[in-house]
């Protein structure tokens, strides 16, 4: 713990020390537990999390869906290492603190290159440029300019009651090893049933299809997914397109991901499956 004088007192805590490509459920559970703990302290106005960029949108959506915080939880990052001639991390972190201090700020957001993104909309879209994230069609929540915020829209508010508090507590006490296995299968030219069949025989609980265009699937992959669905495995369709969402139409047999990209649709499905399990286990 370190205390640095500023308009707000800054406290630090090392929750993990990993390359975010290696992010896993154990760290997510620990992170959720620590974020939840700090947000419950009345004197804490917000939490900032430094995180790798590779899985940042996944952690952001996990925390938003699980915690739906009414204080700001601000993830920040860097595209260049701390030793770089013009490292971007220090400015990103200062911008993140400015967002965390902003009265009225709420929800899980990401701050990178002076842009504030919501957990729901943000996606990494570039391999190396400093402004590596996009909020797609929705656009950013706002901008941080010289330490001041310019908002483009309201702070994100998640659907109420996404995860019951008792389950939140149970989940954050877990080491993640018992979380349901949900995998992503992509549709592409020449796609077949092979991936789905292998996953089903391996005991997968849910499947997210990274579909082409407006949620379309190669007919062989679609047949395998429908068979999996009929056997009780949960299936949704997300799009592999960077922008846009799958628009539902009458007669759809596999539900769409309601605008979530494949990796976020997977997180929502995992939490949904855990919630089903939790409800069935705790029912009197």
């Amino acid at each position: 713990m370190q205390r640095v004088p500023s308009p707000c007192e800054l406290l630090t805590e090392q929750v993990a020390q990993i390359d975010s490509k290696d992010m896993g459920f154990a760290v997510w559970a620990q992170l959720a537990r620590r974020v939840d703990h700090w947000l419950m302290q009345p004197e804490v106005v917000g939490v900032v999390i430094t995180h790798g960029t590779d899985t940042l949108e996944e952690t952001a959506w996990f925390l938003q869906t699980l915690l739906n915080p009414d204080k700001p939880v601000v993830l920040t990052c860097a595209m260049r290492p701390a030793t770089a001639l013009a490292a971007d991390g220090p400015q990103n972190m200062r911008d993140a603190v400015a967002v965390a201090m902003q009265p009225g700020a709420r929800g899980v957001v990401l701050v990178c290159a002076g842009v504030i993104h919501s957990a729901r909309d943000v996606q990494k879209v570039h391999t190396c440029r400093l402004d590596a994230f996009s909020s797609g069609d929705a656009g950013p929540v706002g901008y941080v300019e010289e330490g001041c915020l310019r908002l483009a829209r309201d702070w994100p508010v998640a659907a109420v009651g996404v995860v019951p508090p008792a389950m939140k507590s149970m989940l954050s006490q877990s080491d993640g090893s018992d979380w349901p296995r949900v995998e992503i299968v992509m549709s592409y030219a020449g796609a077949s049933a092979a991936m789905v069949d292998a996953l089903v025989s391996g005991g997968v609980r849910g499947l997210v299809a990274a579909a082409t265009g407006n949620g379309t699937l190669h007919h062989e992959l679609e047949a395998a997914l429908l068979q999996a669905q009929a056997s009780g495995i949960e299936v949704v369709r997300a799009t592999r397109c960077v922008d846009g969402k799958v628009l539902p139409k009458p007669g759809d047999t596999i539900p769409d991901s309601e605008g979530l990209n494949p990796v976020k649709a997977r997180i929502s499905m995992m939490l949904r499956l855990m919630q089903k399990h939790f409800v069935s286990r705790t029912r009197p």
Partner: protein
Amino acid sequence: MTKKKIVILGTGGTIAGTAASVTDHIGYVAARVGIEALVAEMADLAARDPLHNSGEAVAVGSGWAARRLFAGNSPAITKKSNAADRPSPADHRPQGGYAEGP
């Protein structure tokens, strides 16, 4: 009155990564610098920022900021290291003053 607090949680990533050369943006090892050192650098900058200056004495950071400035101006450090003299990942951590992660 209790002072308001912001908690900064470190999880690693490129923001805490170090490379052997200041010009190397991709050949780095992520998650080397502790969150205390990253925040200490920000405190150093806050001292001359009117928006964030509380008027209180500002703690001197770990030396990270000063070292980074030095590194940026030093021809000896800006030289591109070749594979032969590139330090092992364990040597990428800058000398002294950094909190280690768990």
